[in-house]
């Protein structure tokens, strides 16, 4: 597209392609190596290649504990899923709600509230985590004092605090995605439904929400992945095992050293994320034709 496509073209194209190949190598290379080493029959996560093995997934011998036989790791997987599901559900509800607020309603200070909505995405995760921690700490103490010891426990570091902490910024993302879609909605469709005899609630249910489905699915995938991979905020808010997600347990293990079992965990996460990501990507692509 630049100048005439003359002889120079081949030289510059060669340069462009090699640049992109280098970038891809940079972004995907480390992950591919990590993936391969999960199947290396070696006690160290490194080369040389010593044969294919699934030990780091399924072994239960004392010197090689595979991921599936590591109860703490499996527990963390379960916890991560539970947290992510809770965060996704709450964030989607909030996202749809906020989309209607910012697209359909007119009120003083709307612009300000919209900017404020972006806040949780802008503030560093560490600051977000600490501020929620100290706030919830205060409330929990107050509840314990007023209602008796134990009343504020759900606001102590643990499952629900992790969920709330993640919702604080995940809901911003779902709001952005769903708002963008709702803006494209032709409101006269809803009016047409009402004109044809349905109530406003029914019209929203049947027409508008149906229209939002692609955005909701897309936002749900993003929310799930955001929650699944979050470390910074979660780190401050997690307590005992019921809130130890995969990133948290991985971090504590990595501080002591590297084991090929972590490569196996990586493979598991890569596959899950890959499937979800590609699914979301396809969904968005199909959505464009609607």
């Amino acid at each position: 597209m630049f100048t005439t496509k003359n002889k120079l073209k081949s030289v510059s194209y060669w340069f462009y392609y090699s640049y992109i190949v280098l970038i891809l190598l940079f972004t995907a290379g480390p992950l591919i190596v990590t993936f391969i080493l999960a199947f290396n029959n070696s006690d160290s996560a490194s080369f040389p290649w010593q044969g294919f093995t699934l030990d780091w997934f399924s072994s239960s011998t004392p010197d090689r504990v595979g991921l599936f036989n590591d109860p703490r790791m499996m527990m963390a997987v379960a916890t991560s899923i539970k947290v992510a599901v809770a965060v996704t559900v709450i964030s989607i509800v909030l996202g749809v709600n906020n989309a209607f607020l910012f697209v359909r309603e007119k009120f003083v200070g709307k612009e300000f509230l919209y900017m404020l909505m972006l806040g949780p995405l802008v503030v560093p995760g560490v600051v977000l985590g600490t501020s929620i921690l100290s706030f919830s700490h205060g409330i929990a103490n107050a509840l314990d004092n007023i209602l008796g010891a134990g009343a504020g426990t759900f606001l102590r570091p643990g499952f629900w605090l992790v969920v709330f902490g993640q919702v604080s910024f995940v809901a911003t993302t779902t709001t952005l995605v769903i708002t963008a879609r709702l803006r494209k909605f032709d409101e006269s469709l809803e009016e047409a439904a009402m004109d044809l005899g349905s109530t406003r609630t029914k019209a929203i249910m049947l027409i508008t929400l149906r229209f939002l489905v692609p955005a909701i699915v897309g936002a749900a995938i993003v929310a799930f992945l955001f929650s699944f991979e979050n470390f910074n905020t979660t780190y401050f808010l997690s307590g005992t095992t019921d809130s130890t997600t995969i990133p948290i347990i991985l971090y504590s293990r990595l501080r002591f050293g590297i084991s090929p079992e972590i490569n196996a965990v990586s493979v598991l996460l890569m596959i899950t994320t890959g499937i979800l990501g590609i699914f979301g990507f396809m969904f968005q692509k199909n959505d464009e034709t609607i």
Partner: protein
Amino acid sequence: MLAWFKKSRRLWIVLLPYLLWIGVLFVIPHIKLFGLSFIDYRSGDITLKNYAKFFQSSLYRSVFLRTAMYSIITTMLTLAIAFPTAFIITKILGAKMKALLLLSIVLPYWISELIRTFAWMVLLRETGVISYLLQAVGITTHNIEFLYRNSTIVVGLVYTSMLFMIIPIMNSLDSLDDSLIEASYDLGGNFWSTMREVIIPHSAPGIMVGSIMVFMLNLGNYVTVTLLGGKNSLWFTENIYNQFIVRFNQNQGAAFGVILLTFSVLVVWITLKITKQDMSGAM
């Protein structure tokens, strides 16, 4: 009052959940954090001690400065790598390649930052893949530790945040009509003058958004920095963590948090001022 509420019932139904979320999970905790930073951790009195400690301690100051410097350098480096990438993908390669490339650049970023950092540890540690490869081809005869160096932190940060630079720039380049580039050539422009006068001014908002996002991510990073930098990482977020979790000194931690936040807002504001962008254009 009730009548007014009834009249605007529809608004309140959607406004209340929003206020509950943003208020309880964002605004009030940050106000509380701000308040905590002015309170003495032992006596409970109002004080500026927590801030004074930051400005008096050369350690905290230098860690902060170091964090800020590396965040800025890394942001510029990320921009230098990401702009050509975004440009080549959007303006040079065909539409089919574009979707595929985008997918292969985006997908790794869906994977946890922790896994991505781990992947670099696998490559860079003393008995890691790169050390092995260097010995295999005979460049060196002993293991080399690539972790725990400043340059490693920079590589890790560029890697962690590059996508957030590429995507906004791609979006802004996508909206650049190719005929503007052709018009520049037609009027005698060459590659560099077209870049300088047409392409970069047009993608300025994308460059701004990307730089701001990457800068914030760098400044607030914890995982990549502590894992790749080890004990030598000396990143400011580590101080915040230590105050809260190790020393149980919420007030000092809160002051550090406020300092970090103020600094990032300040840098963003100054950048926008210098480049004459306003936030609405950038968002």
